């Protein structure tokens, strides 16, 4: 078991003036036995970061240490890691058993022990009936489990997952998510899991790293990320529908938005221009003297309704209980804010202001 340290990790492609830097100095300490999810939009560098931990990409600057040992110049096979790939990367000409056993065979583990370890992994993953099959004779979910089995049998210090669930259908994905959590609870191996899916990130992570454009925006527990997003990017990326972000002028207990001044339940950290973040679920429609929202469209999702409208020139989304009578399209409703659910961000940097 091992902790992972990322110290000012930089990745750039090319050299000299034409170099293209894609990761701009990531610092993170991942504790032993922790399950950390790296989440971000495509192209944010999350897979590159994972591949640098795996040793498949060179580290341009900075250090990565696994279990206290700096691994910058160590071959992937020597880093004591196992990786599950997005398309599983099973060897097509080998049986399930051979796929799982291949790494062990190379490291010259005795045959009896290989068999014992593969059988054990197959038992955990319910793959025992399929050991003699080739990958093409398996369903997507089974292939995914073989890929995990291949990682398990190596008994590594770290598991690396590169979007392993994105090729599964929605139902299987939810099921596999639970299996991965159980597996982590059972084996207690430090895990790094890359995904672009915020639901996966929120449900799997003990702590999550939110990345954007090669920078780490926030590294915290899912609760913290949701309750106190560190930047406007995190605020808009985590949560569905995303947080409403309104830029206006705060002055005491009032907020001026598009020339219209509305009351605030609690004052801003200081007077001046701010981006105010409001989660759709933390705003209530009704009463009087609130913020006027012109209702344009209502989406019924069963348990809840999404009310889309205009607040001045800003689009605004409001989530309400599906049981309540929705406002009429075209009408104007008054929004009531609650004091503990106001998120203030700096307009220029996007950073959270307390």
């Amino acid at each position: 078991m091992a902790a992972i340290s990322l110290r000012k990790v930089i990745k750039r492609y090319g050299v000299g003036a034409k170099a293209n830097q894609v990761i701009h100095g990531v610092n993170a300490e991942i504790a032993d036995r922790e399950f950390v999810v790296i989440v971000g939009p495509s192209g944010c560098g999350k897979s590159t970061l994972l591949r640098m931990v795996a040793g498949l990409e060179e580290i341009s600057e900075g250090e990565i240490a696994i279990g206290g040992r700096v691994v910058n110049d160590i071959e992937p096979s020597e880093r004591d890691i196992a990786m599950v790939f997005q398309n599983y990367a099973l060897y097509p000409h080998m049986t399930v058993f051979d796929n799982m056993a291949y790494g062990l065979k190379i490291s010259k583990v005795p045959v009896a022990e290989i068999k014992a370890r593969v059988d054990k992994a197959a038992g955990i993953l319910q793959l025992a009936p399929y050991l003699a099959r080739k990958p093409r004779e398996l369903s997507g979910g089974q292939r995914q489990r073989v890929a995990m089995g291949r990682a398990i049998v190596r008994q590594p210090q770290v598991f690396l997952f590169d979007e392993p669930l994105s090729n599964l259908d929605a139902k299987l994905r939810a099921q596999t998510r639970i299996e991965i959590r159980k597996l982590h609870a059972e084996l207690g191996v430090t895990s790094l899991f890359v995904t672009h899916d915020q639901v996966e990130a929120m449900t799997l992570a003990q702590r999550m790293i939110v990345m954007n454009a090669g920078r780490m925006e926030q590294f915290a527990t899912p609760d913290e990320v949701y309750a106190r997003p560190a930047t406007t990017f995190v605020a808009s990326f985590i949560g569905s529908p995303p947080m409403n972000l309104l830029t206006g002028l705060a002055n005491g207990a009032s907020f001026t938005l598009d020339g219209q001044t509305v009351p605030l339940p609690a004052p801003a950290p200081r007077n001046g221009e701010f981006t105010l973040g409001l989660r759709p679920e933390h705003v209530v429609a009704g009463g009087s003297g609130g913020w006027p929202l012109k209702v344009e469209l209502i989406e019924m999702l069963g348990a809840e309704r999404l009310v889309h409208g205009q607040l001045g020139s800003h689009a605004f989304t409001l989530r309400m209980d599906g049981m309540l009578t929705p406002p009429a399209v075209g009408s104007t409703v008054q929004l009531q804010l609650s004091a503990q659910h106001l998120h203030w961000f700096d307009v220029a940097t996007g950073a959270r202001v307390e």
Partner: protein
Amino acid sequence: MVERRPTLGILAHVILILGVLVVALPVYITFVASTHTAQEVVQRPMPMLPGAHFIENYTAALQGGSHGAGSTAAVGRMMFVSLVSALIITFGKIAISLLSAFAIVYFRFRFRMFFFWAIFVTLMLPVEVRIGPTYKVVSDLGMLNSFAGLTIPLIASATATFLFRQFFLTVPEELVEAARIDGAGPMRFFKDILVPLSATSIAALFVIQFIYGWNQYLWPLLVTTNEDMYPVVYGIKRMIAGGDSQNEWNLVMATAMLAMIPPALVVMLMQKWFVKGLVDTEK
């Protein structure tokens, strides 16, 4: 779209049957000629039904020493020479092409593109074009009248290298990475993963290259002067003396039949693999 009109069906079959006849008739006549005595073959009209000297003629051809005006070398030995040469050429080509494609696709070495283009350029230089210098080299190295001389100059193959290169480029990058994480070094990856995955391509190439090797004519003509080292295709030509001399056409035809058997067998036995190798995209 499948047409299901009966007239079209009949027409298609007529054309196919005509095609088969055009291809098969010369082979049939060769076979018929190989089962008669030399006198029966040359009389007019030529017999169109198999004769009674099948075993006699084939035994004579295989053992050699007949009384024809041309070469009377034993065809058995020629078949052996052809088989060994064709196999060396085939396996040599496959081995060299696999390795060079492996190097070009998976290694970043200096002058990589230079070597890539150097291989490419050899496509423009088939044996016929470089035959003079190649002969000089082979003769200076003392490889005339040897299997080495018959095979080595024909082994380098740009076509096969490209075929394997194209195939290797379709092997997913993740597979390489998975093998790296599993601790497989380059040659281990090559042996355990790349070669088994290329099995169908190798089989297809085996068929093509075996026939290529077996059918060599011009090159053996130059580098062999000893009857012991004649391949069968060239041997047939040597059995036919020019001018008005009397050839043992029955034995020539028997030899031709014998020469056709190994390539035909290779095609028939490996047809399934051959087709799979050319069309299969399953990874």
